[in-house]
């Protein structure tokens, strides 16, 4: 049975609430279903104490979740937009990420922060950002960015069971995407990338909604006789360099595509690592497809003009091959 990204997230949360009494959901409007309806019906099913609405106080609710995680709960906090995670940065960066280390291993923070990022439908500059690189930069945090409903289902469950603080980034453009999940499938390991399409000529590394654009680009290029291998990173921290290395050693070309701006983005890190470890394998410079260095605009034609998509990837791969 096909389910949307939103329905599958709800299913994963529902099952985790049922599996482990320590799991609690909290966030703005979550008892009412949340801004996108992900948690709809869960408060009725699991009780108002397990699925709790909070005030619009990102700093306090992130701390609340962290403190509760230190003391025996497994909170799943929803930060409605990643743009609002800026208000919770002290907790996420200074407290949650450091607690294990600063306590000499006495304590842990088994917490998932679900948040929603990326641009779609004119949500504009303060509801559309892709800020994942900030969090990848903080030792102690895990960062996950699923590319499809089925991926999100397994990765969210694995994240809840991991035992470390996880930032789980959902792309709003994927929310209506439909997919069926394999029943009783094994949960994916955190930190393991996935070969989303096998190919021979170029390795295209993407994550989150950009994996959809990568597939579109690969289809177009296949018609031109170019065979693209797509790596869906799934986990941004840690990076699965083994999967990247195996692929680049085969194709000898690498392109990284993300919706976040290029400057200081994850693509720079991956390109640097490929340069460090696989320089002799490369037949061409590593290229990046990313957002130009501007805020996300409101007008739809401007949003379209700015956002990188399949066309940008196709052009980059053509340039790399010639």
């Amino acid at each position, binding site marked *: 049975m096909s389910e949307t990204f939103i329905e599958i997230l709800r299913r994963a949360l529902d099952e985790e609430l049922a599996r482990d009494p320590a799991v609690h959901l909290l966030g703005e409007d979550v008892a009412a279903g949340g801004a996108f309806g992900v948690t709809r019906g869960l408060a009725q099913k699991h009780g108002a104490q397990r699925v709790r609405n909070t*005030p619009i*106080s990102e700093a306090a609710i992130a701390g609340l979740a962290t403190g*509760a995680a230190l*003391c025996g709960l497994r909170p799943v906090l929803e930060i409605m937009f990643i743009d609002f995670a800026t208000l919770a940065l002290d907790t996420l960066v200074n*407290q949650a990420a450091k607690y*294990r280390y*600063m306590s000499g291993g*006495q304590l842990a923070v088994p917490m998932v922060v679900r948040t929603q990022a990326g641009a779609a439908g004119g949500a504009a500059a303060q509801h559309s950002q892709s800020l994942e690189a900030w969090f990848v930069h903080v030792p102690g945090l895990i960062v996950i960015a699923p590319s499809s409903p089925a991926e999100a289902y397994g990765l969210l469950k694995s994240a809840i069971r991991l035992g*470390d603080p996880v930032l789980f980034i959902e792309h709003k453009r994927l929310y209506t995407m439909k997919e069926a999940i394999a029943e009783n499938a094994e949960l994916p390991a955190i930190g393991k990338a996935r070969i989303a399409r096998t190919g021979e000529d170029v390795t295209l590394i993407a994550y989150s909604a950009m994996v959809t654009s990568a597939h579109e680009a690969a289809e177009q290029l296949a018609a031109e006789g170019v065979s693209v291998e797509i790596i869906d990173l799934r986990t941004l921290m840690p990076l699965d360099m083994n999967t990247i290395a195996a692929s680049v050693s085969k194709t000898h070309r690498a392109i990284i595509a993300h919706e976040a701006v290029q400057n200081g983005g994850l693509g720079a890190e991956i390109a640097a690592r490929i340069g460090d470890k696989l320089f002799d394998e490369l037949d061409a410079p590593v290229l990046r497809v990313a957002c130009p260095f501007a805020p996300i605009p409101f007008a739809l034609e401007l949003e379209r003009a700015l956002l990188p998509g399949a066309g940008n990837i196709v052009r980059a791969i053509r340039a790399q091959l010639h």
Partner: protein
Amino acid sequence: MHLVDAAHGVMGATGVVAGNLSLAAGAAWAAQALGSKNVSVVFFGDGATGAGAFHETINLAVLWKLPILFVCENNGYAEFTSREEHSTVKFVRRFAEPYEMAASTIDGNDLLAVYAEAGKAIAGLRHGDGPYLLECMTYRLAGHFVGDAQRYRSKEELAAIREKDPIERLKRHLLQSGVPESDLDATGERARRAVLDAVERARASRHPDPAGVMEDVYAAPWLNAIDG
């Protein structure tokens, strides 16, 4: 600064002013959710009331009736700047009023008053009465950090306040109550010895092994020492 003794319920101190308040509320929420009789007690200075997290946390604590005791040590100084320069709100207790949180201001240098008031507040928390703000008026006898030259306050101001040293006050009270001075001296000496021994033990302890620098970044062991 970052002391943690989880086995004894000392869950840590943060280097970020006001950063501990919401964590403590989270500990209280866990106690509430798990149905334990644990309560959360969090200490902060008057300087923390300038942070939004203080107000956000109070609102949440009252709203969810969390078993948390907010203990404010109002010592008149936030780092090097006096209370008057930080806020027009003289007493931190006043911040509890709009949220209808139970609160009181007491002489924080009166050990017996602190003991009695904190005991009452904690009994209330265990009874499910919701959070409590205990404002303890006090004074910082030492500098903000080791080696603080304290140019921001006068020697006279410091000398006057030493008179109110809570240990000396307790001593005077116990003497008046008929406790022999020799008992007090012996107790004082035992305490001094315990501290000196602890310092001695710490100095004699082995320094950490640099080989362990990548341990405990993550709880999952395989995540430690990975290449980012």
